[in-house]
């Protein structure tokens, strides 16, 4: 059932710790989607998965593939770059779309548009 590459003990323990921290952070972040009450609160929690979760799992992956292929493996940095640059953009756009929709719907709980806007 459990299948994994055969690594030296230090690498195995390091990778195991990182992968567990990363998966745990992602799990808690996604749990926020269930537990938080409003949309604006829910937007905050998945960023746990995209920051701490992604970084830790990528570190574990880099650690494993560096040892397995016996060379320094850093191409995981690419995923980190893409995810850390794109997630803020999507969340920002999504939150602004939600704000726009709430304002159109006349929701009192969201702040009104700044009158002096361009």
């Amino acid at each position, binding site marked *: 059932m459990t299948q994994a590459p055969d690594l030296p003990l230090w690498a195995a323990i390091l990778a195991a710790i990182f992968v567990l921290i990363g998966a745990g952070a992602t799990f808690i972040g996604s749990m926020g989607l269930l537990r938080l009450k409003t949309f604006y609160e829910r937007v905050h929690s998945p960023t746990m998965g995209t920051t701490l979760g992604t970084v830790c799992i990528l570190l574990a992956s880099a650690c494993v593939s560096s040892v397995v292929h016996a060379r320094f493996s850093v191409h995981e940095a690419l995923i980190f770059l893409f995810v850390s640059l794109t997630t803020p953009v999507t969340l920002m756009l999504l939150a602004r779309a939600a704000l726009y929709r709430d304002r159109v719907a006349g929701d009192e709980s969201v702040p009104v548009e*700044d009158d*002096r806007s361009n």
Partner: protein
Amino acid sequence: MTRLVPHPLLTTCLLVMWLLLTQSVSPGQILLGGIVALIAGKTMALLRPDPVEIRSWRAVLRLTGIVAVDILRSNLAVGRIVALPSRRRRVSGFIRLPLAITNPYALTTLAIILTATPGTLWLQYNRTTGSLLLHVLDLVDEEEWIRLIKHRYERLLLEIFA
């Protein structure tokens, strides 16, 4: 130099990305990646973006360190809010704060930092008034948040981007 490589930073980054994707540093790949990066740099020059001028690389390093620590800390804070039942009533809400930075690259960097940090979300920036609308998950003290953003991030961004 500037005519051949109009955007040295972009060209270097693209070359590094190419080498990471192909996972090799053989001369052939460096040549191929270099050609692609040069063409992309030239194409970018045709679009005439505002020049990026980084004045202090030390400030870049300091900002990176501060952001890494803050993201780790707010991960723990948000994780606690989500996973543990809270005893006190938590308030989340919108805050509006005035920004001193006007450089589009500095604003973009600040937007990415604030949104990538769990717990704060950049909503809307008004160019005419320079005011920013934020949503904060755990809003204990509005002044505290405004001071944090202005002191920790905005000061360094002013140093970096003029």
